[in-house]
């Protein structure tokens, strides 16, 4: 179905090729998962499938990519629109029309599909992706997760034979991600559609994949093989695979169900071990950093936040969780002083953030927004770092050093727009973290990050919290929450529905429980590290 033969691709002005001598064949009806570290060339590989690389990016492509027998050398992407549908990382960027239904119809209109067929397929797709309620809505009013589903629906409608998705679930809450993935599996099984999928949050997709393509980066040869085999050796692996490595299970289990069967002896062995303490929030002992009192925010008729009371103390790592559109981002932007509350009061160290001058504000609060690219507008990474040092009055090199802690090896001469999503996030985060504000807010910080970068991020955050900063994360990433958060606040429809010790909140929720917790239940272990420590402690390290 998809055939790469001897493909070498080099971006214009790049010294080394992003892809080198790639030979790859993906068959009809296969669900193929593309994994690799941040910036390794996954997106390039995916976009080469329908010819967006190099037709829209420039650069040199040697070799040949063909799809359903048509070579991207000979035909532009538009002539492949009937065979392949591509959903990019930022769903909003792919929208061409202004309402949901028109967006779904767009490709089919271009393909000349008869109106009655179009109508039927759109109704089917609306059902399949649960978009019925939204059919007349304007795209710009949708939440991130809803936009993601519309973008997927828009390429599904013309029923292409190949579907290419770049991180389709990274913006979705766990429940919505589950839904999208299960509808994809259904398409593979029922219609025989070929799906190529890049994803960082492997724990969600691994059970569904037939084969894994590992992109090691730096132009090294791809590793292709059955999921369990590749996962056993991959530098990026989901918690369940890490757990298997710690416990010495071969072949590695790919789903919670498989792992639970393996885990029986492990659970028994650890049942006597001292249970992980986990970090416990300071009970009133920590000094107050920020607080919201009766905070309400309305956009028009809509209540984004409703009477929220929250106190944030020094040294806490607070995870704000909840469905897409439950008010997480709004809460963060209130603390960051981006807008004034409709009612109630927000204060950071006794001051109202919305009334502070920008220069004073960043010494109190730092926010890394969901799209970190908006913070960057220097000419190069190095330029961005030195500007940040100068503007915040830090010693030269502070920001650059912070960048190396978050993600080493980001090329200093690269333009921020040419970085991968993960690298961009790391740079934005370094800029915000450098002045070490007492209140640090991160909106979906792990979106687009691979496991090693996530690991480093966890280290940075823990260090900051230990240094007395208060860290607030709005996130869907339950694994991250299990690793760093001391406290979890769950929002629903703008109200706080639960607020407590993170371990307890995530462990008892069927939606938010991390993989290890599901495998180890009823034992209280949440992360691979905890299991490893416990094994060492009980002297049973394998």
């Amino acid at each position, binding site marked *: 179905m998809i055939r790469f033969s001897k493909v070498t691709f080099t971006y214009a002005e790049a010294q080394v090729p992003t892809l080198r001598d790639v030979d790859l064949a993906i068959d009809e009806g296969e669900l193929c998962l593309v994994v690799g570290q941040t910036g390794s060339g996954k997106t390039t590989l995916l976009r080469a499938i329908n010819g967006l690389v190099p037709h829209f990016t420039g650069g040199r492509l040697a070799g040949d990519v063909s799809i359903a027998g048509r070579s991207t050398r000979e035909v532009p992407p538009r002539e492949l629109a009937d065979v392949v549908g591509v959903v990019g990382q930022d769903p909003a960027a792919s929208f061409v029309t202004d309402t949901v239904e028109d967006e779904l119809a767009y490709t089919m*209109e271009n393909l000349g599909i008869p109106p009655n067929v179009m109508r039927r397929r759109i109704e089917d797709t609306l059902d399949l992706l649960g978009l019925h309620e939204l059919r007349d809505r304007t795209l*710009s*009013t949708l939440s991130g997760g809803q936009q993601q589903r519309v973008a997927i629906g828009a390429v599904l409608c013309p029923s292409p034979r190949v579907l290419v998705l770049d991180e389709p679930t990274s913006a979705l809450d766990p429940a919505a991600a589950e839904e999208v993935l299960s509808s994809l599996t259904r398409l593979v099984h029922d219609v025989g559609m070929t799906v190529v999928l890049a994803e960082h949050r492997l724990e969600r997709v691994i059970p569904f994949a037939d084969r894994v393509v590992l992109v090691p980066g730096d132009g090294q040869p791809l590793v292709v093989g059955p999921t369990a085999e590749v996962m056993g050796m991959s530098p990026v692996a989901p918690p369940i695979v890490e757990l298997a490595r710690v416990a010495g299970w071969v072949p590695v289990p790919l789903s919670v169900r498989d792992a639970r069967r393996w885990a029986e002896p492990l659970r028994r062995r650890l049942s006597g071990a001292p249970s992980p303490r986990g970090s416990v929030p300071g009970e009133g002992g920590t000094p107050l950093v920020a607080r919201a009192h009766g905070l309400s925010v309305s956009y028009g008729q809509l209540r984004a936040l409703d009477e929220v009371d929250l106190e944030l103390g020094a040294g806490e790592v607070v995870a704000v969780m909840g469905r897409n559109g439950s008010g997480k981002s709004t809460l963060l932007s209130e603390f960051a002083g981006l807008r004034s509350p409709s009612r109630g009061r927000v204060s950071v160290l006794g001051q109202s953030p919305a009334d502070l001058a920008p220069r004073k504000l960043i010494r109190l609060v730092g926010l890394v927004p969901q799209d970190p690219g908006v913070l960057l507008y220097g000419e190069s990474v190095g330029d961005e770092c030195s500007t940040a040092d100068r503007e915040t009055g830090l010693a030269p090199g502070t920001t650059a050093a912070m960048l190396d802690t978050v993600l080493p090896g980001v090329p200093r001469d690269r333009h921020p727009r040419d970085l991968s999503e993960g690298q961009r996030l790391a740079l934005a985060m370094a800029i915000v973290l450098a002045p070490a504000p007492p209140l640090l807010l991160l909106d979906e910080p792990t979106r687009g990050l691979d496991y090693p970068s996530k690991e480093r991020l966890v280290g940075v955050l823990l260090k900051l919290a230990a240094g007395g900063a208060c860290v607030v994360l709005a996130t869907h990433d339950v694994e991250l929450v299990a690793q760093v958060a001391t406290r979890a606040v769950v929002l629903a429809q703008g109200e706080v529905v639960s607020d407590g010790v993170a371990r307890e909140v995530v462990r008892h929720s069927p939606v938010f429980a991390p993989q290890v917790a599901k495998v180890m239940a009823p034992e209280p272990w949440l992360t691979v590290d905890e299991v490893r420590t416990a094994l060492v402690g009980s002297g049973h390290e394998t």
Partner: protein
Amino acid sequence: MSGARTTRRGRLGLHPGAWWLWAGCMAGAAIRTTNPLLLALIAAAAAFVVSTRRTSAPWSRSLIVFFRLGLVVIVVRVVLQVVFGNRLPGHVLFTLPHVPLPSWARGVSIGGPVTFEAVLQAAVEGLRLAVVLICFGAANSLASPYRLLRCLPAVLYEAGVAVTVSLAFAPEVVMAIGNVRDARRLRGRPTRGVAGLRGMAIPVLEAALDRSLQLASSMDARGYGRRVTLARNTRRMASGSSAAGLLLVMAGVYGILDVGSLPVGGIPFLAVGAVLVGAGMAVGGRRTERTRYRPDVWRGPEWAVTASGAAVLASFIAASVLGVQGMQLQIYPLHVPLLPLLPTAGILVGLLPAAVAPAPGGRSGTGGPGPLEPSESVAVEPAEAALT
């Protein structure tokens, strides 16, 4: 199979063309009068219809923007009159110091006595322009320009896409301004004043251009501009004929609205233009594999709405032809404006759409003003704020 419903009715309310025609007629009527009472009535009628028949989409809240814009127009017009305007005789309100200008600038005067009559005339002229703006604002609130573009005949599709992209550019810039302002605040940079403006211009343009490029690649990936089966010459002929026809139609409309601007009047232009457009569509319609998803239908309510607009315009034309008193504001001698019967009745007919147009989403209830969900992104909201 063939009985399947492939058109849309009531889903998003009326056919957008009907709304734009109705609003165009209202605007055309407004141009023909300087009676502030009539102008105010037209604006009120437009606002009333909008309040009863708008959808829940963001652009439906744009009427208020047009009202503000109208206010600005009036103020600017009055200020210009006070500073530069003709010195009309009458009751002097105050006298500005006169600035002598060199002889080559004759005809322009700065300063001098400002009369009540001059200010009044400027205000009324400003009001007329403001009401025209409000009429278009009403059309904009009732039917998005995107939807109108979807109704373009297939021949003009390419031109329509160009307009779509440029239309998308404007909100993109508004949104980018909001994003960049937030981002600058997060990085501790000034967001106001000259320094703020200078720092923001480049990233805003960059973001908007970036988005346009993304749009282009996205459109291509989704099959826009696939091979067209029609012979090149035929296609050109079809496009040329429709475009020329549309130009003639526009000229004709102009001729009708601005009496005496065309020697033969507007009607012949309109007629020839309509024939050309029809021919172009007939030829061009046969080409391309492109199909249309649920095109808007044109039925009774559309006719009724258009007719009510036409009635307003007709009553105003008739009133000026018949020489009905009170169409223009009398300044010398100054009179309290009357409310002439014929045009007033016409405006009342213009209220008809509030009753005959289907309520948006009334059929299934899905399109009604349901609760909007909050946007996940921090970035989206400022754009919305900028719209309202």
